[in-house]
């Protein structure tokens, strides 16, 4: 295990990939859609359902439109990276495995104070909840650690253990950087050293304006309705698919893409400030209904352990 300190953001990511790969996780790639958190990746949301064992780890670019600060805030970004690990059933030594990952990225457990502080996780849009902790390193939250109890309204059986690392925050801590934009993205000794800011300062400025002022709300409202309708339409198909042979073929993943889309559109509308407090709950309920419908369908499929 390399105990030396990494030199860049990407080195931390690469070390996490190597570590969890060595622990037997499938190293997946980010999902190719706009999501609010790594949990939305079907590799987590859907694969946490059903009885089949599963172990995956991946980086997920995540978007929180309301967190845009035009690249000025040292810690807040509207686009950031999460590192996500999901293992089903949760192994008995998951805490130890997790601590090993901190060592892998250069945190010396003999010098730091690592704490598991109660934090129950709930995603109202996914109809999901779990119990676990936020993990503190010297008072700094470096990860979320959750045992999924329910996803899409379904009890999880077996239970998945989920780890989420907020990569920028964790890396800033490990690298000793105070402003995210100053963090080295690649090796500072590289011929062309690039900072996080070199890559993302401009996009943060542009997207902050887009999220708060630019996005066309009338269009987004329409697209929300479209995604919702499409999700339901896809799930309403007869499972029998003559082109695919005898086995039923339910379009769960395509439908779930629409659920993801609706969720992101809702986040954008929220950032644009056009959703009132009362409407908010209603929108969240509509996305949750989609997530639930997808979960209901997934558990009937082969991957969901139902066929």
């Amino acid at each position, binding site marked *: 295990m390399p105990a030396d300190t990494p030199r860049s953001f990407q080195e931390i990511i690469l070390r996490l990939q190597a570590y969890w790969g060595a622990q037997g996780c499938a190293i997946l790639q980010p999902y190719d859609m706009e999501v609010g958190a790594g949990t939305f990746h079907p590799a987590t949301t859907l694969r946490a359902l059903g009885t089949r064992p599963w172990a995956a780890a991946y980086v997920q670019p995540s978007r929180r439109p309301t967190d845009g600060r035009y690249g000025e805030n040292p810690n807040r970004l509207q686009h950031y990276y999460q590192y996500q690990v999901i293992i089903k059933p949760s192994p008995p030594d998951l*805490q130890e495995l997790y601590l090993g990952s901190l060592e892998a990225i250069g945190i010396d457990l003999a010098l730091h104070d690592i704490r598991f502080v109660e934090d129950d996780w709930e995603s109202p849009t996914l109809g999901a909840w779990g119990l676990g902790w936020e993990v503190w390193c010297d008072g700094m939250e470096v990860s979320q650690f959750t045992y999924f109890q329910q996803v899409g309204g379904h009890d999880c059986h077996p239970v998945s253990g989920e780890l989420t690392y907020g990569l920028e925050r964790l890396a800033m801590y490990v690298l000793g950087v105070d402003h995210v934009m100053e963090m080295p993205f690649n090796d500072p000794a590289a011929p062309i050293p690039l900072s996080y800011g070199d890559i993302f300062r401009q996009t943060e400025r542009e997207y902050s304006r887009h999220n708060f002022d630019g996005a066309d709300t009338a269009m987004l409202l329409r697209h929300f309705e479209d995604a919702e309708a499409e999700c339901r339409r896809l799930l309403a198909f007869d499972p029998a698919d003559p082109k695919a042979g005898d086995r039923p073929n339910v379009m769960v993943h395509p439908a779930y893409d629409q659920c993801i889309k609706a969720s992101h559109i809702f986040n954008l509308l929220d950032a644009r400030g056009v959703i009132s407090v009362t409407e908010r709950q209603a929108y969240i309920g509509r996305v949750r209904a989609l997530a639930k419908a997808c979960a209901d369908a997934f558990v009937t499929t082969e991957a969901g352990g139902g066929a």
Partner: protein
Amino acid sequence: MPDLLIELLSEEIPARMQPRARDDLRRLVTDGLVEAGLTYAHAAAFSTPRRLALAVEGLADRSPTLREERKGPRADAPAQAIEGFLRATGVPREALIERDTGRGAVLFALVERPGRPAAEIVAEVLARTIRDFPWPKSMRWGAGSLRWVRPLRGILCLLTDGAGAEVVPLALDGIAASGTTEGHRFMAPGRFAVTGFEDYAARLRRAHVILDPAEREAKILHEARSLAFAAGLELVEDPALLTEVAGLVEWPVVLMGEIGADYLALPAEVLRTSMREHQKFFSVRNPRSGRIERFVTVANRETADHGATILAGNARVLAARLSDARFFWESDLHTVRTVGLEGMAEGLRAVTFHNRLGSQWERVQRIEALAREIAPLVGAPPDLTAEAARVCKADLQSRMVGEFPELQGIMGRYYAAAAGLPEPVAAACEDHYRPLGPADRVPAEPVSIAVALADRIDTLAGFWAIGEKPTGSKDPFALRRAALGAIRLILDNGLRLRLAARPGPFRTAGDLVGPRESDQGPSHASETDLLAFLHDRLKVHLREEGIRHDVIDAVLAMPGSDDLTLVVKRARALAAFLATDDGENLVQGFRRANNILTQAEERDGVEYSFGADPRFAEDPAEHALFAALDAAEAAIAPAMQAEDFAAAMAAMAALRAPIDAFFEAVQVNAPNEAVRRNRLNLLHRIRALCLSVADLAKLEG
């Protein structure tokens, strides 16, 4: 007499759940043991973030053998019935006893339930305790079905006596009980065996775990005080935080750090709240300036660098947090200096208070109008009061309160001062939320009182109008607390105001809210209904003072019951009166008079309410009563007028002897009809006089 040691080792147990979990473990296990016939001498429970432990001393080594006689069928019952009885009791036919019960011979079986060894009972009780443990929230993990607060990793269950320690055989969902445990996760990894409670606690200590939460608390408090003292500072004590922090560590190491100079100018409440809520830090104050200058954090381990890395990390996290807080503070100050607090309050237009009661901004408008009306009643200048009401909720729009909702009001006061508003307005921004709970102080400044009352009366009138009254244990809008707040504001300040007068505060509040959509259609808050709710809360409030609810009912029946200060004054005088001999006997006399009179009136179909004439008096006691009533009437009316209830009660008490003597000497229902009528009319004078003080008929006897 063996001792029992149980430890349930798990992943980290939330700190807030540990105190109750200790009690539950002790109660469930010891109750289970006793129920199964095992007595014990002493039991104590402990917790750390990773374990719950229970030590039971002096446990019986077996449960006693129990013998019980069970009645069966008659001796001449069909063979089938007798066989059934044999099967049920497990007793052979020849062992049955035949006895004549007076209704023929009946079979009895002597059933013996042999005692069982402690280990067997402990295993059963512990398995049941784990399965049924009342965690506020529990979970499953892995592929198992067991539930615990977080994954359960080990069960230690030992019975120890002179001969040595024995592991109680027990397995749950793949976890087998053992005689081993683990120490500190980082400082002493690995398992070790223990032989009993003392050995367990001592080995844990060597493995960097202090088992007893009280000891961890004491250690943290002592070290934190010492560190602060050595720096010439003092710890801001916080018992709830102390308990929480002691539940987060197995091996507390107290570290003190500096708050960056850039942040020392932040209000003390902001520093304290940010450090406490986000970082679970204690605040350390300079006793001379009152400023918070340092923080104390509690780590869970010792390190080779004596905590230097940990402290530096914590200080960095704090600096990031406080830099946010300072940004909020400065941006809020900029707002109030440019657009004023009223400008900040503009944003309340977009904040829904309740979907059927409009926005916060509309609510502020109502509070302003109502406060302006209440102001003269409480001695506050109306314009200043209205100004205070207009800005009292402005800080809800500040960035600081957005981040720390618990600072509402406190920030308002700072921002009002920064905006150059008069001191009573700034004070009202904070104090109109008071009293926040039974232990909180009640504002005494008239402007604060007027706004605070208006706030609560608007809340009550609003939720009344939409039909959201509290029912049973459900009070989602904390209306009982709002009512109690209004009551305390009035009573503690001795305010004299008629809440239900027309015009008056309730009527105005109801009109300001106007008719609103409720589940039963549009409705309007009614003054009488609101007053009845306040009276109910008043009874609860006065019960704590020892005043009975029927005493309050007796005074509520009097006019002016919407003047709560008057009601309480009356109730206290009546309660004091009833505590005397005279009072108690007078009530008896009143009841007697009232009963006789009521019966006579019912029978005769008339009301005896006029013209008792001393000329028809026959007995000296009757004459004396006339004289006493004359004297009492002369004293009571002016005393009541002057609200000197003690004097009125004393005058009433003077009637006791004459009334007693009257009933002793004469028969009311005399044969002579004229005499009888006169006496009934005399009784009426007693009744009317007493009722002019309080409705004594409402008293329970």
